[in-house]
């Protein structure tokens, strides 16, 4: 049955590819071409998921559940719902793009690079599809390793330090996460997410202990997102990591886990902490935006823009309104897409001019019109221009959260305005105004075929996701509705938005 | 007859002297001798208990301990000679190429 084995295939085809890479000759572009093939095959396989997904049905689909280790009872349990569906798709979609962007950038030790890259794909997909807490943890930890090695080995000069920072930041809280998972197992005798959810909902646990357990989960994920005071690794990693890794290092893994486990397993505890997290989210949003304004290195601008945007997702999550949650999921996907695109653009810019300092650029628009166009499209998506994907997410989050925490959200809108400021300012300084010395000195080559192939799929998807958001929402909304507060708690948010939305509304709004 | 506890106290005292000497003495040979003293204190304990339990296995144990101690001494002295050749000193404080 394809439906039962499809998730296994999607998860392990890249790992298999990673093993095969080791057997390939180091000649020419054999290895990157093979990696591209593997990621494309994975992507095509993953298209099976939305195709055959039953949008009317709740719960997990394409499930497979077989015993893996008898004692303790660990199952190989995979499955996806509307939340993980799109995150799996996002990951497989970014796979070929990661290969294409590394095509030129990685010249030496390609075997190591691409096999670790493919292993990283497996780990990330595994995180999204695993429904056994143990299996999930295994993939979660595994996702650190290839990432850290790739940053250390293929990053820029200070790559090894950044990798160390990243690993320690994320590994330490993971140790506590393991204690928490083992404690849950000791109490309930199961690692199965669905069973655990039912057990925890039925109550009967010491609330104090449960609170600590939920905190361990929260901290482990918050570091990975990263949420504001725990973001120390982010800027260094984005700055040093090879582009293919910087694209996927932040955001989706941590945010997904917050949705799935903090909200799914510990709804009461998550709600207790919610005001704190909303506050932290708003602070992170403003902080990221202000720091981004002060940067001249384009990668650091983007790093803080990412921090700012991810804080936005945190706000959406911890307001517990349905449209806020929907918006947060949508923003998670947007962030992976638009944030990835801007990093790819920066990489292409660097390949041409060898500088990340935006003060050295100027007047590029006339020399590289295509690059400029795509940069502007991505920028507009990131700042949330209507008709673009970013707008849908931001609007849903703001409108869903405003009734819950009006004061904080009012402050958050300032952050949104600031984000428009620094992103547009960056585009302005690089592409418009006087041609700088650096720009006029170098030969100007606009995008080549490989670069077009890398960027256009992302640009098109950004626009499509802005225009046709219901296609995504019809899966996200049912998954989120079980996590949101009861509709009675937030009655006014949705209908009010319905009238003011310029484009077809997600189903979430219609509630 | 001398009560068993006297033997035990004597052996405990000897053992403690051995332990103290192990930490205080600076000459490797003396340190090594303090270990031998500890082993002999144990032998005395074994003999004492063997007498108390009327169990000959305690005395047999002593023979084994003596044999093993002799083997240990053979190896130990060889090692001490090797150290002396390499470093020309028998003071434990000066054998500090690697910090403890």
């Amino acid at each position, binding site marked *: 049955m394809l439906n039962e084995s499809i998730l296994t295939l999607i998860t392990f085809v890249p790992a298999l590819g990673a093993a095969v890479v080791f057997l390939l000759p180091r000649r020419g572009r054999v290895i990157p071409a093979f990696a591209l093939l593997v990621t494309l095959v994975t992507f095509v396989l993953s298209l099976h998921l939305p195709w055959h997904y039953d949008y009317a049905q709740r719960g997990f689909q394409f499930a497979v559940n077989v015993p893996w280790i008898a004692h303790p009872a660990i199952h190989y349990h995979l499955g996806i719902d509307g939340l993980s569906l799109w995150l799996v798709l996002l990951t497989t979609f970014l796979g070929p793009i990661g290969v294409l962007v590394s095509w030129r950038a990685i010249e030496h030790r390609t075997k190591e690079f691409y096999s670790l890259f493919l292993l990283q794909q497996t780990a990330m997909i595994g995180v999204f599809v695993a429904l056994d807490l143990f299996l999930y943890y295994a993939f979660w930890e595994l996702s650190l390793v290839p990432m850290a090695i790739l940053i250390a080995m293929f990053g820029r000069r200070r790559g090894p330090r950044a990798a160390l920072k990243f690993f320690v930041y994320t590994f*330490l809280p993971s140790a506590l996460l*393991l204690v928490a998972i083992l404690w849950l197992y000791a109490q309930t005798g199961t690692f199965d997410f669905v069973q655990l959810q039912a057990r925890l909902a039925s109550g009967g646990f010491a609330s104090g202990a449960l609170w600590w357990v939920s905190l361990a989960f929260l901290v482990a994920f918050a570091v990975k997102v990263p949420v504001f005071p725990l973001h120390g690794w982010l800027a260094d990693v984005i700055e040093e990591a090879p582009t293919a890794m910087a694209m996927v290092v932040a955001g989706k893994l941590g945010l997904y886990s917050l949705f799935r486990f903090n909200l799914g397993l510990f709804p009461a505890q998550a709600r207790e902490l919610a005001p704190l997290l909303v506050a932290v989210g708003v602070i992170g949003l403003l902080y990221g935006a202000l720091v981004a304004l002060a940067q001249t290195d384009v990668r650091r601008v983007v790093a803080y823009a990412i921090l700012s945007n991810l804080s936005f997702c945190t706000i959406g999550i911890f307001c517990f309104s349905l449209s806020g949650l929907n918006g947060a999921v949508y923003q998670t996907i947007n962030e992976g897409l638009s944030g990835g695109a801007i990093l790819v653009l920066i990489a292409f810019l660097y390949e041409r001019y060898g500088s990340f300092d935006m003060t050295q650029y100027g007047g590029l628009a006339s020399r590289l019109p295509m690059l400029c166009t795509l940069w502007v499209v991505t920028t507009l998506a990131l700042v949330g221009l209507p008709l673009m994907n970013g707008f849908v997410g931001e609007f849903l989050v703001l409108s869903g959260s405003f009734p819950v925490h009006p004061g904080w959200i009012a402050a958050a809108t300032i952050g949104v305005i600031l984000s428009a400021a620094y992103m547009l300012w960056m585009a302005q300084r690089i592409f418009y105004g006087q041609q700088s010395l650096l720009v006029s000195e170098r030969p100007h080559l606009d995008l080549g075929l490989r670069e077009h192939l890398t960027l256009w799929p992302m640009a098109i998807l950004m626009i499509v996701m802005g225009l046709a958001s219901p296609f995504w929402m019809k899966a996200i909304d049912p998954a989120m509705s079980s996590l949101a507060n009861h509709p009675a708690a937030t009655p006014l948010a949705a209908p009010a938005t319905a009238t003011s939305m310029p484009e077809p509304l997600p189903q979430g709004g219609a509630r | 007859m001398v009560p068993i506890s006297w033997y035990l106290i004597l052996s405990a005292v000897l053992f403690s002297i051995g332990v103290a000497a192990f930490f205080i003495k600076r000459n490797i040979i003396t340190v090594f001798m303090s270990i031998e003293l500890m082993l002999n204190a144990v032998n005395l*304990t074994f003999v*004492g208990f063997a007498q*108390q339990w009327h169990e000959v296995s*305690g005395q047999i144990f002593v023979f084994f301990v003596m044999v*093993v101690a002799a083997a240990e001494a053979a190896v130990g002295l060889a090692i001490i000679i090797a150290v002396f050749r390499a470093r020309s000193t028998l003071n434990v404080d000066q054998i500090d190429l690697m910090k*403890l």
Partner: protein
Amino acid sequence: MIPMVNPALRVLPEIILTLFGILVMLADAVMAKASSRKPLGWLAVLGALAALAASLWQNRLPAGDAFYGVVRTDAFSVFFHVLIAGIVLASLLIALDAVSDTTEGLGELFALILFGAVGMMFMTSAVELLLVFIALEISSISTYIMAGFRRKSAKGPESALKYFLLGSFATAFFLYGIALVFGATGTTRIPEIASAIAAGHTPAIIYIGLAMLIVGLGFKVSAAPFHVWTPDVYEGAPSPVVALMSTAPKAAAFAVLLRIVYGAFPLLHDHWTPILWWLAVLSMTIGNLGALRQRNVKRLLAYSSIAHAGYLLVAFAALSADGIAAASFYAVAYAIMNVGIFAVISHAGGYEDRLTLIDDYRGLAWRSPLLGGVMAFFLISLIGIPFTGGFFGKFYVFVAALHSGLIWLAIIGLVNSGIAAWYYLRVATAIYSRPSESSPVHSLPRPSLALLLALVITVSGTLILGIFPGGVLSSARAAAATYTSVSPVPSSSGTSAADTTAQH
């Protein structure tokens, strides 16, 4: 009635190793002075293989005693026999790779490894403290000699001296412990000690005896605060020897500790669990904090081995069949990954330790992706990342601890494993940094067949333990089951966190 088994069969692996050891020694004596001793190494490998096969075969024997109740073969002893034979096999291969044809005293080294293994194997099957003592000494004396094998280097004899003095000191404690237990119970057979205690009226000196036994074994497993010799000895000893002595004698000493505390003193668990609790906490913490400030890779791994002894003791303190199984499993997982990493160190650094500092390893992965990748893999396993043996080792240990309500111990342990990640990663980071022009990694020798065999054994072992741990775990559980008749299991999976007091 248990069918009669020829007693010699119960010590078959030991007999095989002794015979091969004597053969190697004699051949060494009659061979021409100038000829290479490497064939003797392969002969020793053959002996280790035969011992491994014999140990596996022993699984088919019915559990029982031999030689008037001195030796016992059961699932437990077979488990550790197989482990020790495997370690010896891998260490011999590592030694064969590291040494050159002209290395001094090579034949003796191979013979000593085999003789030492005889002692270690007897440690795991002895149920009479007299034999435990003799076996411990056979194992220790051979390792004292091997530690100082680089006689001409300045550090070699110093390493052997420290090991010898502190080792004999610990032996004296162990022996005094035996004497006091003998005085309290009138016997030195482990099962009879247990029944004497069960009968009641044991005098108080038994507690002192038990404490001294634990101190003596604490030295042998390098548990803090009895760990001071470890870093110096590891630094000064040749790497192939460290591969052996950081794993096999320790596994054997842990087996003895299990036999003693669970076999002889199950009824006194109120007294020894707190001791082991503190030993575990101290070992983990001191080991990891000590490793943080090391610059020498072998010293770093010495501190790491102290920390790993601590994790293993966590399982001891759990006081359940699950705990024994977890400890046994951990011993295997740790042994395989540690032997593996020393295989790389021994090859890259050679017998004379050309690479010592972490910085010397800079660029290893760029220079040789195979060696660098394998070393990173073992570091990852030592950290305890999933899909490696190190992960399941820790996992079972902490599951057992949590099941017994040792929540604090589990938290301390896992926080420690988080700290540990830092220093393992420093090494991994160095490996993956770009090498400088003058880096010593540019002059790596070619990997030999022996090294490749050793790497295949250890890498596949670590992967199998990490992906399909079921097989080894069920053997470990069978080994643990030999104690369930005597081991009290105090708390099942409690429903509240309230029973944390059990540990104090």
